[in-house]
């Protein structure tokens, strides 16, 4: 009898501990989520009464050229920025995993960009990308007379945003670093005795043992890349000529600039389905390359 009351008390304690999250979710998230599902089948401008619209909003998704454009832009962003970001984060983590003096300082320095305020750093990057006065083009002018116009150029605006996204590699780097430190030293010793060089060690020891961490970072990075908003909102507002119209920015514009809250809700649910599909696909594919030691 005593054990059940204990387990009951533990369960109660457990619920109490998670209650801030549960309450927060129920009060602030669950309601709006359900509301937006309902809205996606309606026309609503926030002023007049919502009007049932059946599948209108979903049909519009298929016909909206800007939606297609924003999907292509987002895919472009994801396909380039995710691998680049992960490689950089892993490279940094490897460097920061060395046993050197003042390593704590270096780790702090490389992580710092990830905790600085998004909007402030974007203002900074807008100056870096400034075609005439920016540091980047001042440097490039040493080699070419006509460096890219970056955010003002249809072809260079998206690469600029992707380059800037590398600035936030610190988060994934930190997780990689923790993963690297979890790899037992004996395995490196054993492989050294077997005559493996450092490249072979990296290929046959580090990568396989780090694969769950790589997988985690990859999944999170893919999800995040489909939700990028601030950079395009602050730096380009989707321009020039829709070149940086990312999906969530277009969603925001529909909701709060063009006041089509029903259509924006349908867009949000389409995004949910896309991200869910990609994440399930990732889990499926992960069986081939992720090793859980």
């Amino acid at each position: 009898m005593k054990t059940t009351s204990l387990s009951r008390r533990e369960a109660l304690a457990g619920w109490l501990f998670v209650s801030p999250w549960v309450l927060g979710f129920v009060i602030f998230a669950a309601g709006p989520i359900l509301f937006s599902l309902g809205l996606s089948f309606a026309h609503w401008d926030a002023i007049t009464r919502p009007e049932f619209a059946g599948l209108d909003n979903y049909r519009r998704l298929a016909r909206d050229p800007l939606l297609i454009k924003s999907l292509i832009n987002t895919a472009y962003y994801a396909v380039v920025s995710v691998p680049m970001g992960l490689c950089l984060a892993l490279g940094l983590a490897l460097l920061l995993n060395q046993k050197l003096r003042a390593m704590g300082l270096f780790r702090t320095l490389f992580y710092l960009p990830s905790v600085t305020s998004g909007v402030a750093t974007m203002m900074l990057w807008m100056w870096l990308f400034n075609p005439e006065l920016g540091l980047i083009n001042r440097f490039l002018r040493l080699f070419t007379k006509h460096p890219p116009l970056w955010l003002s150029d249809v072809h260079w605006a998206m690469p600029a945003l992707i380059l800037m996204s590398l600035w936030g590699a610190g988060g994934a780097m930190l997780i990689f670093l923790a993963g690297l430190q979890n790899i037992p030293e004996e395995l490196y010793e054993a492989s050294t005795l077997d005559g493996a060089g450092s490249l072979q060690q990296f290929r046959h020891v580090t990568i396989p043992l780090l694969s769950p961490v790589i997988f985690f970072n990859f999944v999170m990075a893919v999800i995040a890349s489909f939700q990028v908003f601030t950079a395009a909102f602050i730096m380009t507002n989707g321009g020039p000529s829709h070149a940086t119209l990312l999906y969530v920015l277009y969603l925001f514009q529909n909701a709060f600039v063009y006041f089509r809250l029903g259509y924006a809700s349908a867009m949000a649910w389409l995004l949910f389905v896309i991200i869910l599909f990609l994440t399930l696909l990732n889990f499926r594919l992960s069986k081939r390359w992720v090793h859980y030691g």
Partner: protein
Amino acid sequence: MLVLAALCAYGGCARHLAQDEGRIVIEWYAPATPEFLKLYREEFIPEFERQHPDIKIRLNASLGDTGYDAKLLTLIAGDIPPDVVHFTQVDYPYFAAKGLLLDVEFLAESDPSLSLQDYFAPVLDGMRVKGRLYGLPSDFSTIVLFYNRDLFDHANLAYPSANWTWDDFVRAARRLTVDENGDGNPEQFGFVTQNSYNRWPAWVWANGGSILDRSESRCLMDKPAAVEGLRFYTELATRMHVAPASGQGAGQSADDLFASGRVAMICNSRYAYKSMFNMIPFKWDVAPPPRQVRRATTLIWGCNAIVRTTRHPKQSWEFLKFLSGREAAFANIKAGNAIPAYKPVALAPGALKGPQTPEHDSAFLEAVAYARTAPTPVQFADYSEALTILDDAFLGIRPVEDVCKEFTRTVNQVLRERP
């Protein structure tokens, strides 16, 4: 739970308490830029409350371009709308067309203390939605040509005259475009074009074109005169290179380019005076915008409107009249807030003159004769999305005819939908 309940109760009460020591509370939703706040808190509200001891004005000030309307929508959706709202020509038509605002045409006609004749006709015309008025204008400005006198003197050029045509304008702009080191990237430009819905229409009109037909049911931007007007305006940057092309402006806004002396001419409103007076080290003046087959320019304005569901329409109307009346007009002038929409004050000799107003300041009032509000059809939200199609013309990456055709097709589709 208790805390939550208390919070809800507090929020609910504070919001719905429409009385304050026996006074009726009018909530006024207005922009929160520092100079406006000062004007509201130190001039408008105290003076109005002094004249109307039974009314208290509670200011709900909000920042941001996108945020301003989004917060207003949230207040409305949450069923706690303000009573009186400040709008500009950008957002007013949308809210008026949605039936959110009180029709004040009738109120204005039946109130002997107010005459609509006292307000500038082109501003009222711009505010009428399907022939009805949903607010009163408080301040406005026409768009005219600002020029840097020092740069004109330096180039030995005559100042822009009232009879300037586009040819005269381009000739001067060419002379004022200077590429000293010959790197193809001029250090100084004659003019700066702006991809803004209330700038380029002036050039379409001046060329004899129209953007929409009179009933705002059809787009006319594919007609030759309109295409040529937009072509001329965009090609100042993309082909004639007398204005900075995309990426050539060093990331500076058009206003900053003029203020820093990098462009010699800009089309701007009298609202720009405020920042220019303190900032500009060179001599400058204003002139009518150059003409082509006719004189034309755009008009921008601010107004106040009453939310239809207000429980205090009478008190709100008193406040509206005050904001557009004599005292507010003087306060607007004092604050450097462009031109009061109230004619008796604005047209009084010397009323607008300040220690720093440029010599030909009267150009703004002269332009009222041919100025119009840029089209703001009742489907403005969709229309403003269609405007992004014009980006390609301003970037010079697609023939202007094609851009105009696509714009016309899309806008026609937009205009067929209900607001």
